[in-house]
Structures are given as structure tokens and as C-alpha cells.
């Protein structure tokens, strides 16, 4: 299968596989205006994101800056109420410095809801027309940043979908792409196995610490790990359970640990550490799958592989979400929402390598005119909550 991959070149050298106008609220009070602005456009033309506020948040600021300058984003309409605690001038300067058109509407200075919607809609319409004329450039797999997540998991996730996603990751890493996996809370028990794949001794220790931190954090939240139900399903040890989720990462060397909103320093495979440092402050690290997807995207993911057994239907703003269904019965029931049927492995109709190849082809195809089921269905979910910002993990990035 050959792909003529192409995308939109940004000033920082990254290339986008989508070219969307973001309509971003800087406090929940401006959310409605954003929704009404976006209503005049297709799902692929304009999408709503935002930070609910209203208290100041370093994490919220970092995330909004990273998301508004994501390679899949062509222009940004910011909508402020006017009195919120958000450093909107800093955000605007950050977007301007990235070379993207940006427009700020402050509802309290614009005459209210109706006028703000009219102003925003007019500006977004100009940008959509402008972005449509923007020429594309050739892309190769090495331009891609791909994230992976599993959610709505069942006994099949660790048998079919996750290992197949891992095979796709191995091919992408070999191509020089950048791949991101998470969730340290689901890696408890296999941190030493993971650490053995670190490409340097400092990273090895950091990988173990990141999982120990997650274990402490989730325990403080009153959240357990290995259950009787796991044993009934055939899982014998915590290592085995965690390996089922960890299988998404494939077999490649691990090159570093990223924090939300941090760009990978180079190609390779990275663990995204989503658990904040210190004691729990704002609750669970990520309250749902979408919050996790948004963090993968904040690190520059062009697309996210989502492995599900029970059957999640979500997509995302900014980047396509490719749904890999691990369970053949779920696939039959929710076929329209799924992109890849990894359950065929259990039916004996495909191998892990076959499905890994399908995932790989589908991801490259997203830069060659392909769309995901969730995009076709209009899914543009977005969640961004409060979290303590984490400093970059020192010493665990490969030398540039």
C-alpha cells in the first residue's frame, strides 16, 4: 500500500495533517459564544476547545498554548468574557509568534453575546477561506507524532488491540516517527520491565520513579489495582495485568519521559507521565479518556490510536482518533464507530502483525485523505481541567 502523504507546513517546521480553526474560550462564561461561532462551520473547519477557569492555572495556560499552536491548527479565535483569570495576552502573543492568525474577542467589550458571535463568525469565515487556499507539502512517516491510549477496556484489550497497536508503534518508530504512550497508573507492576527498555541509565531510574509516583497518587485517591475479577478473567499477577496495557508501547527502546504540553525533543518512543508531582491536589490525574487524549495532543500528537474492548465512541478536537476495537462482539455491535477490527485475531481471521499493519496503514492514510470513524460522525470532544503543572523530567531526554 503506497501513501501520498501531505500536510500543511507550519513556521516551526512541523507539518499538520489537519488545518482547523480553533474557537477557544478562556473561561466557561465564553463557551456558549464559541459553540455558536463554530455552529456556522463544518466539524473539520472549526472546532471548540477552551479552559473553564476561572482561577489562574499554570497548567491550563501551558496546555492552551501548546494546543493553540498544534501542527493541526491553522488559526485561532480566542473568546474571553473579560474579567477571567487567564493570561490571554500571553496566549495571544504565543500564538502570534507561531505565525498563526489569531483574533481575540472580549465579550464585555464587544456589546455582548450576539455581537461577539457575529464578530467571531465573520473572522473565522475569513480564516476558513484563507486556510482552504493554503498549499500542502509532502509528508513522510517520520513527520508524524502518534499517541496511544486504551479505554473502555475488557479482557480482549490486552490480547488483541493493545499488542497490535504496539506492532504499529514498532513500525512507526523504525520509520523515524515519534510515538507517545501513557498511563503510569496502569503500568504498576511492570515498571522494572519497562525500565529495561530505557535507552540510558538515568531514564531507567526515572521510568521506575514515574510508576511509583502513580502508585502513591492513585492509592491516596483510594483507587485499587488487581482484583478478583482480573483473576477470573485469567490474569495471574499484577505484572501480567499491567503488561496488557503496556503492550501498546511495542518493543522499541524508550527515549524519554514527557509531561503534558511538552514537545518531544526528537523522534522515538516516549512515556507521557500524566500524574502530577506531589500529593493529589485537584483530584484524579485525568478524569476521563478525553482528558488523556487531549494531553497526548498537547505534546503534538497528529493522531491518537484508541484501543477499546467495551466500545468507546469518542473522537477529539484537533487530532483524529483512530478506534481499534479489541473485542469482536463489540465490533459487530458498534461497527460504524470503529476503524479497525482487532477482534478478528480472536476469531482466528487475522494475526497481530496483520492488524498492526492495518493500524499503521490507517494512520499514514490520515495524512493522505483518510478520515476516522469518529471524524465522520462529527466527534470533537474536548476536556481540560485543573492539574498541578509538572516540571520536565530532568536528565531523561536523549542528547539532541
Amino acid at each position, binding site marked *: 500500500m503506497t501513501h501520498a502523504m501531505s500536510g500543511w507546513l507550519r513556521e516551526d517546521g512541523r507539518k499538520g495533517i489537519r488545518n482547523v480553526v480553533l474557537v477557544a474560550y478562556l473561561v466557561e462564561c465564553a463557551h456558549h459564544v464559541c459553540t455558536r461561532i463554530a455552529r456556522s462551520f463544518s466539524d473539520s473547519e472549526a472546532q471548540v476547545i477552551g479552559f473553564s477557569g476561572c482561577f489562574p492555572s499554570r497548567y491550563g495556560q501551558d496546555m492552551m498554548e501548546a494546543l493553540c499552536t498544534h501542527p493541526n491548527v491553522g488559526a485561532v479565535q480566542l473568546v474571553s468574557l473579560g474579567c477571567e483569570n487567564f493570561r490571554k495576552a500571553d496566549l495571544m502573543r504565543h500564538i502570534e509568534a507561531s505565525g498563526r492568525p489569531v483574533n481575540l474577542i472580549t465579550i464585555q467589550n464587544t456589546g455582548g453575546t450576539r455581537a461577539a458571535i457575529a464578530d467571531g463568525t465573520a473572522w473565522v469565515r475569513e480564516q476558513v477561506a484563507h486556510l482552504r487556499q493554503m498549499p500542502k507539502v509532502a509528508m513522510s512517516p517520520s513527520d508524524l507524532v502518534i499517541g496511544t491510549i486504551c479505554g473502555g477496556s475488557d479482557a480482549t484489550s490486552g490480547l488483541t488491540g493493545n499488542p497490535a497497536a504496539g506492532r504499529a508503534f514498532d513500525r512507526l518508530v523504525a520509520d523515524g516517527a515519534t510515538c507517545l504512550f501513557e498511563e503510569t497508573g496502569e503500568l504498576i507492576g511492570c515498571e522494572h520491565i519497562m525500565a529495561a527498555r530505557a535507552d540510558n541509565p538515568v531514564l531507567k531510574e526515572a521510568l521506575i520513579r514515574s510508576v511509583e509516583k502513580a502508585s502513591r497518587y492513585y492509592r491516596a485517591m483510594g483507587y485499587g489495582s488487581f482484583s478478583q475479577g482480573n483473576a477470573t478473567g485469567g490474569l*495471574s499477577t499484577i505484572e501480567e495485568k499491567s*503488561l496488557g496495557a503496556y503492550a501498546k508501547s511495542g518493543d522499541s527502546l524508550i527515549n524519554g519521559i514527557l509531561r503534558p504540553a511538552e514537545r518531544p525533543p526528537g523522534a522515538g518512543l516516549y512515556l507521557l507521565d500524566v500524574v502530577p508531582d506531589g500529593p493529589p491536589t485537584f483530584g484524579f490525574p485525568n478524569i476521563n479518556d478525553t482528558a488523556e487524549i487531549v494531553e497526548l495532543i498537547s505534546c503534538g500528537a497528529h493522531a491518537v490510536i484508541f484501543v477499546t474492548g467495551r466500545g468507546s465512541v469518542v473522537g477529539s478536537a484537533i487530532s483524529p482518533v483512530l478506534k481499534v476495537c479489541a473485542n469482536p462482539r463489540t465490533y459487530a455491535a458498534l461497527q460504524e464507530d470503529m476503524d479497525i477490527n482487532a477482534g478478528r485475531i480472536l476469531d482466528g481471521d487475522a494475526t497481530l502483525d496483520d492488524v498492526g499493519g492495518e493500524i499503521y496503514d490507517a494512520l499514514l492514510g490520515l495524512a493522505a485523505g483518510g478520515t476516522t470513524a469518529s471524524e465522520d460522525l462529527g466527534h470533537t470532544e474536548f476536556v481540560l481541567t485543573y492539574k498541578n503543572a509538572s516540571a520536565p523530567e530532568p536528565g531523561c531526554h536523549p542528547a539532541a
Partner: protein
Amino acid sequence: MSEGEKPAVRLLHLHRNDNVAVLMQDAEIGATTRHGARCISIPTALGMGHKIAVAPIAKGADVLKYGAPIGFAARDIAIGEHVHLHNVTSRYTVIEDMEAGQR
């Protein structure tokens, strides 16, 4: 396999180095399965997702799934045996214990 017997239960061997494989469907007592050229009979009724040994595993040796150790054999495990809580011991140093020691 003689005429009239049920077709072999499908096995999933996740990694070339693994000494266990996973049942891809429920297996009744006496069901058979294939691993490579070998025909293996399954001694007990097992649900989809459970594991059997596809190589002999000596007491103390790593049990390998996904190409990685999921624990070690608590006793010798023969080919075809169910591999589960009764004959696998987690090697994982439980983080909860480490934490308790630090207080």
C-alpha cells in the same frame, strides 16, 4: 484428531519468546489445541483469556507473556498445564510495602 471431535481451541502466542499462550475461546475438559506442530490436550475447563504452558517451565523460571516475565513458576509446569495463581508467583515488589516501610 479423529472424526467427530471438536475443532481445536485457538491459541494466541503473543510473543515468540513466550512459554505460555492464551486461549482465544472457552475450552471444555479434554479439549485440544495446537501450538505449531504440537497437539496439546487441555486438562481442565478454562475460559477465554486463561493461559496454558506451551513449553516446559522449571520451578523458579520466568513465566513469559508479551515477551516479558509476569512472575516465576512456583513449581515445575508441564506443557498444556493451566498457568495461573496456583503455579505462578509474582516477582513484583509491591509498592505498597515499600511505602509502608518508609513511614
